């Protein structure tokens, strides 16, 4: 890796000793470091291993576990080095990525808001699937960015953009319980692609 770089975009989570060394080097070589995507900002789906013992997983998939080197946990970039901005989503939204890079070139803050999917859903004029049809929806606690895609297609949000700023998942969970969502489904809802994001991680353990 050469460098120095003005802007580094990093995707993927840290899951091996090699990753750990590499991210330190990238941080040193970069003026601005931006983590993009659910893996880089919340450990990604691989962070599901953080809720069990990783040694239990390996023999399930690989016949020769001795060939595998991996860390106990999959951690977001910000868990290892300082990060200047995080772009959410699994996958990220390309308009947001363009905005991020343009803002960087113009030396301003990106115009990317930390409010909820509900906000976008209202803007889009959708009928709320939770209110109208009793479909469980993570929109109230999920970070905006997708344009409320799932409710637009008559399905509940499953949280692929991770938590919004200061979410209140406990109150959403109470509501979901009223809709008849069992406890083990609540655990699954908060544990998909952003399971290591603190508000989701914590709420998922409450229902375990």
């Amino acid at each position, binding site marked *: 890796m050469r460098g120095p770089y003005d802007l580094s975009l990093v995707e993927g989570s840290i*899951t091996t000793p090699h990753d750990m060394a590499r991210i330190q080097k990238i941080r040193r070589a970069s003026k601005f470091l931006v983590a993009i995507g659910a893996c880089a900002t919340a450990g990604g*789906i691989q962070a599901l291993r953080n809720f069990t013992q990783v040694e239990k997983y390996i023999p399930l998939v*690989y016949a020769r576990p001795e060939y595998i080197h991996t860390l106990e946990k999959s951690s977001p970039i910000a868990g290892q080095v300082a990060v200047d901005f995080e772009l959410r989503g699994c996958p990220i939204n390309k308009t947001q990525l363009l905005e991020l890079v343009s803002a960087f070139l113009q030396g301003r803050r990106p115009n990317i808001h930390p409010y909820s999917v509900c906000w976008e859903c209202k803007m889009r004029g959708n009928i709320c699937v939770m209110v109208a049809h009793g479909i469980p929806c993570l929109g109230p606690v999920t970070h905006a960015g997708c344009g409320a895609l799932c409710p637009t*297609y*008559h*399905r509940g949000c*499953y949280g692929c953009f991770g938590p919004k700023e200061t979410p209140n998942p406990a109150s959403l969970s109470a509501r979901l319980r009223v809709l008849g969502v069992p406890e083990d489904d609540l655990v*699954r809802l908060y544990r998909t692609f952003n399971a290591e994001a603190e508000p989701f991680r914590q709420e998922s353990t409450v229902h375990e």
Partner: protein
Amino acid sequence: MSSKTIKVDYLARVEGEGALYIRIKDDRVTQVQLKIFEPPRFFEAFLQGRKYTEAPDITARICGICPVAYQMSSVHALEQILGLKVAGPLRELRRLIYCGEWIESHGLHVYMLHAPDFLGYADAIQMARDYPEAVKRGLKLKQIGNELVALVGGREIHPINVRVGGFYSVPRKKDLVPMVEKLKWARDAALETVRWVSTFNFPPVEPEYEFVSLRHPQEYPFNEGRLVSNKGLDIAVDDFEAHFEEEHVPYTTALHSILKARGAYYVGPMARYNNNFDLLPPAVQAAAQEAGLTSFCCNPFQSIIIRSIEILYACEESLRIIDQYEQPERPYLEAEPRAGIGHGISEAPRGSLYHRYRIDDQGVIQEAKIVPPTSQNQKTVESDLYQVAVQNLHLPEDQLTWICEQAIRNYDPCISCSVHFLKLHLERR
């Protein structure tokens, strides 16, 4: 005694990261190893304990290039357990979204990754200086494929609209119609692509392969059919594991899949083409013949022509589907979960993708198995590499490396979807 090692650490223009080692001793190729590495991702393990309804969303995350393939193999396997038979317009919509993925993935590979090999450019950006029109055509084709996936699936990467039983919501006819003009352009562009790539120079090799793909009695395959080969394999999808097995090889991060009876085999566009040529529409067959192909091709370098033929087919098929489409009354079929085992194979851009699930009576996944096309081709890629290295031993090292990389790209290996990623073990001697 002279000994040299050709080592390519990061394979350019392959989706993901890979490494290749060829050991040459006294003018003999002694070892060929293709290494694919990324941290382990454990998808089969993650699926345990999840609800069956989550499988299409979770497995889509295995690959950003071919998420539709994962969604399709998973929903078909799960529907088998639930006793659901998706037919009519819902079945057609599934073919339509798959067409989008083929157009997008093949367009990317043909133009951006593979063509530069044949024309002697380090990458598509260099190639664009001399072939600006071609590169623009490739980008636009890819864009149209993406649009088709987004139209049916909600977005182009990790679509949100696919579910067990059908879709969360279905497009109206008038939502699909605006694609027609674009697809007609794409059809012409695909035909031009076929003509263009057929003028490339192809090393004259014709190894013996066993070509494995789905075959359906009435249609070029996407989601349904039996698994067949040119060497007499003809089995139900359910019997996959009775005929194939995976071995874990120390130096690579992917598991190698082999046919128990005969070893290495070949999946992908060339396998589909060879097993299903008679099912291509006459116009597509004619384009293949005009490009100098017959109904059977076994030169792996010509896979670029066949990928282009499949883009053409996917455009024709999308136009047919949109033309005949009538919006179904309900977007999905429903069933109560029940315990059982289900199998699904669909034809990902890179070849047959196998899924098996066991769920309990609550619909919770107890066990999942996924065999992606890249791990099925791995053994065949290595034997191709061995041949190519032996034949070109006299070339200077940079040219030898070039042609080896090209031989790997013949397979369009999708390293991000090898599913079984292990950490690389470097062997230094």
